[in-house]
Every structure is written in C-alpha cells, then in structure tokens.
C-alpha cells in the first residue's frame, strides 16, 4: 500500500449565520461536519451527493480557498490547514482545479496562451519563451493545436473550453486536480471525450483527482473510490465497483435507484425518497438521513451512527450494518 497523497481527517467547516458587523451569531451552518478520506497517488476519489450536501465546501477546503474550522488536511505528509505565505503558494501549485462551467471559468479578455500561462508565470520564474513552449506542449497534451494559444476562449466550443481548463490545471505539474462537476455542462457526445481525456492524462502523468459530481454513472466510471456525502457527513465510502455492486447505506441505495436506467427494461429497486434535503442550519438529530429514510428505526433519531468498516475498504455509517 502506497502512502496517500492527500489525507483528510475529521474535517469541519461551519459558517456563522446572522452575524452583521458586530452582531450576535444566530446559528451555524455545518456545511462540512467531520469528514475523513484519503486519495492515493494516481487515483481518483469520487465525491457524490445532492446540492447543498457540502461537496463544494469540501473542494474549497482542499483547495485552501476556505479555512477549515477543525480537522486536518495532510498533503504529502504535511498538514496544510493554516499554511501561509510561500508554503501555501507551493501547495496551491500542486493542487489545481477544473470548474463546472467552462464558459465562466475562462476570462473572455485573455488569450488562451495567457490563461494557461498565468499559473506558470505566478509560480515559476521562467522566461516568456519557455512559458510559450510549455503552453504549446500543454495544448497538445489535451488534444488541441499549439497555435491555438493566440485565440480567445469565445472561439472554442464547450468541450474545447473544458480542455483548456484542464490544460491550465496541469500547467504547474499539479499532483492533485479537483474536478468540480467537470462534465455536467457538456453535451453527451462531448462528455465521453472529456472523461476519456481525464483517464488518459491520469495514466500518463499519474495525477490524482478529487472528482465531485452528482451523476453517479460518470463518477463510477472514472473513480477508484467513491465517497457518498449527505448533509455535511460521509455516509458511505467504498471501491467504485464494490459500491455499484452492493450499495449498503439507504441513501446510497436511493441514489442508485434514482440514477436513470441504461435501457428501458432495466429492473430497478425503486426507492423514492420523500421530501427534500433538510436545511443544514437545523440538521435532524441522530442520523441526518433518518427523516427521509425508509428503514429508519427509533434509535436513528437519537444517536448518530459512526462510519464503520463492514468489509475491507467498505465503510458505512448506518445502524443496519
């Protein structure tokens, strides 16, 4: 077993509500409330969950764009929570991001060469000539032509823009790339291109991904491990194929049931959840899923189940197991 590249332990992020200047804090939104996971070098961790479950906050914490309330994020053996100055810069060089919408994540005023070259110029002290040749290499790496560096983002299609965003993320030889819904905004036929490109880059460069999405099929396809998140907590963590074959947590089961069939006669266990995700400001007592859970028992409302390992590599937080 190799050492994990990134290890997150008991990470928490609480946002205050109702504080106005010097006013009193009326409550806390526990966006991320004690989650732990690890990503190995060259592997992908998929993080799935519905909107508002804390996926994006988790990604911001990993990117050091938000400061954690508690817990630790250990990257290459060093805790990055509270890192400052040069060390933080160095961390940010190694951890990059690709956003969902390639239309708003690329500046329309910059040429492609400047967009991709910007992280290089920021982090490394090299000549313009070298930056230019690196940009050319990166464009080729993501399947575009080096002479496209002169163009502006509006001259590219959605799929090509997402390639540009990936090239930018790779520009500083990142070891971990946070992919925040990278294919949700793309057309079906283009989606397969980008997923294929991400797989190829991982095989070639050994880069790790934290893949955040709500499309289970795409996540399962790309990830080695999947973590399922609900209201700021992880409810289940398992190997990707293992999770697809035997989801344990009722919420995971419901997610799989809600994923659309791949052909019209697919037999599905229908678990239709009632209601919607409760507010993170006043999460339910005990297991946060119990008000929507079809298998809820009386003790689910009293005490929160811990994430326990039920079989090697398969963890679940539910009293049923």
């Amino acid at each position, binding site marked *: 077993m190799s050492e994990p590249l990134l290890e997150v332990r008991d990470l928490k992020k609480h946002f205050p509500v109702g504080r106005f200047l010097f006013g009193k804090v009326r409550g806390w939104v526990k966006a991320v409330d004690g989650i732990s996971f690890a990503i190995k070098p060259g592997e992908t961790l998929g993080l799935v969950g519905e909107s508002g479950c804390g996926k994006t906050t988790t990604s911001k914490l990993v990117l050091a764009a938000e400061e954690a309330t508690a817990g630790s994020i250990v990257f290459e053996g060093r805790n990055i929570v509270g890192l400052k100055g040069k060390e933080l810069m160095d961390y940010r060089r190694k951890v990059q991001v690709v956003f969902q919408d390639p239309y708003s994540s690329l500046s329309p005023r910059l040429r492609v060469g400047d967009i991709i070259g910007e992280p290089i110029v920021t982090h490394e002290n090299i000549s313009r000539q070298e930056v230019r040749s690196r940009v050319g290499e990166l464009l080729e790496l993501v399947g575009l032509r080096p002479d496209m560096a002169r163009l502006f983002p509006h001259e590219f299609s959605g799929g090509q823009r997402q390639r540009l965003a990936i090239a930018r993320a790779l520009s500083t030889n990142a070891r971990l790339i946070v992919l925040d819904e990278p294919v949700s905004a793309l057309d*079906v036929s283009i989606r397969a291109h980008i997923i294929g490109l991400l797989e190829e880059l991982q095989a070639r460069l050994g880069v790790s991904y934290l893949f955040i999405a*709500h499309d289970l099929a795409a996540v399962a396809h790309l990830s080695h491990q999947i973590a399922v998140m609900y209201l700021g907590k992880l409810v289940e963590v398992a190997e990707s194929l293992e999770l697809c074959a035997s989801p344990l947590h009722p919420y995971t089961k419901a997610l799989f049931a809600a994923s659309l069939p791949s052909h019209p006669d697919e037999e599905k266990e229908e678990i239709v959840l009632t209601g919607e995700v409760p507010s993170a400001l006043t999460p339910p007592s005990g297991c946060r899923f119990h008000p929507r859970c079809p298998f809820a028992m009386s003790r689910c409302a009293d005490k929160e189940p811990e994430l326990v390992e039920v079989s090697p590599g398969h963890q679940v937080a539910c009293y049923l197991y």
Partner: protein
Amino acid sequence: MPPLLHVKDLKTYYVGFRGTRVVKAVDGVSFSLEAGETFGLVGESGCGKTTTCHSIVRLLPPSARIVDGSIELEGEDLLQKSPGEIRAIRGRVIATILQDPMASLDPLFSIYDQVAEPAYYHQGLRGGKLRQRVRELLTAVRIPSPEVRMREFPHQMSGGMRQRIVGAIAQAGGPKIIIADEPTTNLDVTIQLQYLNLLKDLQRATGVALIFVTHNLGIVAKMCDKVAVMYAGKIVELQSVRGLFYHPRHPYTRALLDSMPKLGTKEPLYAIPGQPPDLAALPAGCSFHPRCAYAMDRCRIEAPAEQSMADGATAKCWLSNGEDSTED
C-alpha cells in the same frame, strides 16, 4: 381518426440580417403523437429540439421563420391560425414546461395567482371554484399544505417545488398535450426521480400526451413510448423506445448509446469524433458523415432519404435500407 398532433415536414429557419445567414434549425421534421402517449425528442444542444417545440406553440423569436410544412392538431393546421387563435390553444390544449423553473415563474406574483391564471382564462373558473381547482392542482403535484403554500411566492420554494408548481400550471388549463423541454436538468437526482414519477402519475390520471425533450437517454428509457433522435435539424431515427435501445438503426443513435457511462462497468466510452456541425454551413450529403464510423462515398454526396423498417421504425441512413443490415 387523425392523430392528436401531426407535424409534417416542418422547416423552421433563423434568418440573419437581410437574409445573409440562414440557420436551418429545423429542416424537414415529421412525427405524430397519439393521445396519452409519451414522445421523446433527443439530441445534443443546437440540434433543433427546442425550435421544433417552440414552432408547435409558436413561441419563436422574431428572426425565426416557419418556411414549410404543417402542424396539425386534431386535423386542423396550426400554422393557418392567427396569433389570437394560437393564444387560445396555448395553455388550454398544448401546455409547456420549460427547463428553468426560476425563469418560468414570475417572482412578483403569488403561487395562487400563477396557478389560477390558466384555469381563470381557459376554463372560466371564478371564486371558490377557482380556489378549489388550485388546491386540487397543488395537491396533485404533491405540494404539502397547499392552502399555505398558495399564498407564498416562488422565492420561498426549493427548486424541486418550483418545478412542480410549473407542472401544476401546465395542468391548470386541462391540456391534451404537455411539451416538457428538459424539465429536470436543474434538479438533483433524487428530486428528478420524484418529478419524473409525478409526471407519469399525472399522465395516468389525465391521459395527457407528453412531448419530452431531453439530451439524456436515461430519461428516455424511463419515460417514453416513442423516440425521435435529432441531428442537425433532422430526425435521423424514429422508433419505439425498446427498438431504439435494442436495435438502434442510425450510427448516430448507436454512438450516443455507446457514449453513455453505465453503472457498474468501467468499459471505455465511445467518443463521437468531431463536433456537431454549424447549422448555417452543413456538410454536403448526410450531415452526420464527417463524424460517422460507417461513412461511405455515397454519404458525402447524397443525403439519405427516410427508410422504413418492417417494425415501423424509420431511419435516415444509407446503411439501413429496409432491413437490419447494420446489425453487428
């Protein structure tokens, strides 16, 4: 008896300034819809799905021209109707559910006002009867405590609830056809399932026909009876949903099916090479030939005519001449 809706050889073009640029968004689309049926219209963005639907209810932007074809609703051609007559049909006979529930609800009017409006105009309900009808509609789309909720405003609702309200508005005029244009794209997966099941239940209860526009083949598999696959303004394949998934006739349909990630396997996905074409400068011959794995010389010169199969399927491909010659 004529079908409920029969679209024949519809051509809707967007004409640029002084006719310099003509975008053939819908280029000879034909299909028919029977009562109570769910018809799926699938394709990538820019293939003309939405323009087809907007042509039916005539909600096109000023630059669009319906240049040819007919749209027959129970035997009457909608294209011959005046704007006033179309207005009476919209909402009463054909209702629409649009993609973005935030944009299709007016933030300044209460839920009651918005759900009541079609029932007020199209069914002439007033007073207590109108209130009763709104309560029924909200209950049908499973809005909890409708009496309270109908006094609230769209911003007080979650995304799933807003989309259900839009569904209630679509039902309010008692339509025979509902056109749902990607109604679940902005919803979470579990909410999406709730919504799709809700639409199915409503259909079962009222016998309304649905036109389901989507790019998601999974939704098609779940919802539709009949499917048309659109590419570059044309329907390239039209057949039953089972036929489409088990015997795709057109190479584009097959490529779309192969590019879908499936749960529980890690087989590499098929990526269709190239980009969808520019609708103002379509390639000669079959529009799909530059991206097609089976393209022949003939495809580059001559656009394939519609071929009918024994089981009622139609496809526009030289390879599918009457029998399943493209079977692997």
